[in-house]
């Protein structure tokens, strides 16, 4: 009972120290949701459908069909097309090279006649823009010049079918004329139907990902700052005072751990409340699994921070080590770049960081509706890592009596 009171006394000390240090307070509780909002604003829209690359267009063919395709592109709301002047290949290349356009389109010959009428100018640094532009050009051709598309299809089939009869040719011409007069609505092709996952909001997976990624990043960062108090206590003589007492530093370390776990939970509440309010991530619907995930995350951050700080001799050493570790773990674990974009070997290495487990657990709970059987392993890994850090800190605190 008395030990509990000692632990609570330390929790109170840390809470008051944080409460009276307004800069630390902002860094701990305001910055994480803010960074999360910035990350999610950037990445929530980057699901592919919403990307509108800027396309520099030059119509060198200057035929009726090429003009219709170019006009359709310029009028499209799905791509930001602009006609370059003068309309030359070099002008398009210059626009792309200077970064004024994400990709370029040169209409070299009449799209209605056989051949390769379109040239896409691509910037390897913006590789995703080229295939998107290509898809938009195909859509524009189907919408604005369906007659030309029909004729190109017939031309492609002719070698296989043999020469068309006069009647067949006449029918095709009539169909082309009808298409030209009344272009059909193009929805994306006749091959595909689309089904969006029930209840899934666009970008929800990315939001859950970055909420988790930002949480573990800041939980670790803030826990490190809190754990640095151990160094301050050594430097200020508080540790000497306590080591001369009955209880030593044990309750101090435990108290710091409890406080830092609580701090991590509050940070999680701040970030996921923002995710729920702003992006509709269904946190409350998954509260039963969200809570243990959050607790495991906070335990992991608090324990690792205390363990790391405890092995250092000076505050400067601890600060340098913690900055190094936080940044490297964040980069490898997926807090900076989505893990699925990483090479396979780096994704494997990522499992040695808490970040990957935290992200996986939260995505499982909030996005994939995972059950206990799918997240218990992450809880275990995170809790064991945190408790190992705490045990190390306690052991070193006992040794520090000397």
């Amino acid at each position, binding site marked *: 009972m*008395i030990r509990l*009171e*000692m632990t*609570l*006394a*330390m929790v*109170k*000390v840390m809470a*008051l*120290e944080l409460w*009276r*240090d307004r800069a630390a307070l902002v860094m701990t509780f305001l910055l994480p949701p803010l960074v999360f909002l910035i990350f999610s604003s950037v990445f929530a829209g980057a699901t592919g459908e919403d990307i509108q690359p800027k396309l520099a267009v030059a119509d060198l063919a200057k035929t009726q069909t090429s003009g219709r395709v170019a006009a359709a592109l310029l009028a499209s709301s799905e791509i930001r097309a602009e006609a370059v002047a003068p309309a030359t290949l070099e002008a398009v290349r210059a626009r792309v090279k200077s970064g004024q356009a994400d990709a370029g389109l040169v209409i070299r010959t009449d799209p209605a006649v056989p051949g390769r009428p379109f040239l896409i100018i691509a910037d390897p640094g913006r590789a995703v823009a080229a295939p998107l532009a290509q898809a938009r050009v195909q859509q524009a051709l189907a919408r604005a010049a369906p007659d030309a598309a029909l004729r190109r299809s017939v031309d492609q089939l002719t070698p296989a079918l043999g020469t068309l009869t006069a009647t067949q040719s006449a029918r095709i011409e009539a169909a082309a004329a009808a298409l030209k007069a009344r272009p059909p609505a193009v929805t994306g092709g006749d091959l595909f139907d689309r089904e969006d996952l029930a209840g899934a909001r666009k970008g929800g997976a990315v939001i859950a990902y970055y909420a988790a990624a930002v949480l573990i990043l800041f939980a670790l960062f803030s826990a490190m700052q809190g754990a640095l108090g151990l160094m301050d206590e050594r*430097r*200020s*003589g*508080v540790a*000497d*005072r*306590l*080591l*001369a*007492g*009955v*209880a*030593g530093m044990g*309750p*101090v370390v435990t108290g710091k751990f409890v406080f830092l776990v609580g701090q991590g939970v509050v940070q999680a509440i701040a970030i996921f409340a923002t995710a729920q309010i702003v992006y509709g991530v269904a946190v409350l619907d998954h509260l039963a699994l969200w809570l243990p995930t959050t607790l495991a995350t906070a335990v992991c951050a608090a324990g690792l921070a205390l363990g790391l700080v405890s092995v250092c001799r000076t505050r400067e050493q601890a600060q340098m080590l913690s900055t190094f570790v936080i940044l490297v773990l964040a980069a490898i674990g997926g807090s900076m770049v989505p893990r699925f974009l990483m090479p396979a070997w780096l994704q494997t290495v990522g499992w040695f960081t808490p970040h990957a487990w935290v992200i996986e657990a939260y995505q499982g709970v909030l996005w994939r509706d995972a059950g206990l059987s799918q997240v218990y392993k992450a809880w275990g890994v995170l809790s064991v890592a945190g408790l190992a850090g705490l045990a190390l800190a306690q052991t070193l605190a006992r040794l520090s*009596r*000397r």
Partner: protein
Amino acid sequence: MSASPILTVTGAVHAYGDKTVLQGVDLTLAPGEIYALLGPNGAGKTTLIKTICGRLRPDGGAIRLNGQDPARIASARAVLGLVPQEIALYAHLTVSENLAAFASLALMPRKTVPAAVERAMALTRTTDRAHVPVRHLSGGYQRRANIAAAIVHQPALLILDEPTVGVDIDARAALDTVIRDLRDLGVAVLLTTHDLEQAGGLADRVGFLREGRMALEGPPRALLADAFGARMEVMVQLAEAPNASGEGSLVAEGLSPSVHRPDLWTRLDVDGYAAAGRLDKALRKAGLTPREIRVREPSLQNLFSLVAERKLAA
């Protein structure tokens, strides 16, 4: 010293590797006694304090707090309060918040904490700053709050490590009052300090530690009487530092130079005032100009110098 000692150090030996820092130190401290532990840097004061606090187990000899070994029995340290040299407090917390925290960390039951905090603040005269964050206190108040945090759990033995470092004269006087009040309440006080004036004024006994041994120990007045008898210290301050020939004249008159001040020279003389007159004439005759000649009773500083220079043995 009629009461049984709260602290007993018997033949304490401790070595760091090949270097033996404590070489058989004996020390006892009774309730209501102030003991000043003196000695140059490296004499073993810090190591001795660490062994008393139970942080180091001596390689030989024994340390007992109320008859118990503080390194083996944690509860033995309950009688101990340590005032580190630094301001060992949480800077963002107020004085009362700090004291409450340290009371809890000293295993005090929660119900008793508020009264203990009030008492510690009253004893250290910090009540008027109870709700001021420590970082906003003056140096003197910080020092007193530093002591308050060490006595909040009402220890029987208070160890103060250089309590007057960086404080002004008024603040030091206030600290001395606090320490005397604690002594009057029956608290045993072990003080390590380089401030020999403070030690001389406060301590019931002083101990000179030299190279891990207690070179000299006893009440200051008795030690001074033993070492100097009826001799007085005659101190000559010259208008300027002497040249080689001047130094020869000063030595011929039995004067010794001060370590840090080439213009200050001293000697001990039974008839100090008469000696002062003779010295003035002799030095002027030798071409030296005394700016001031003072006669006073020898201080612990004189004694300390003798011990440090091995001119005096235990």
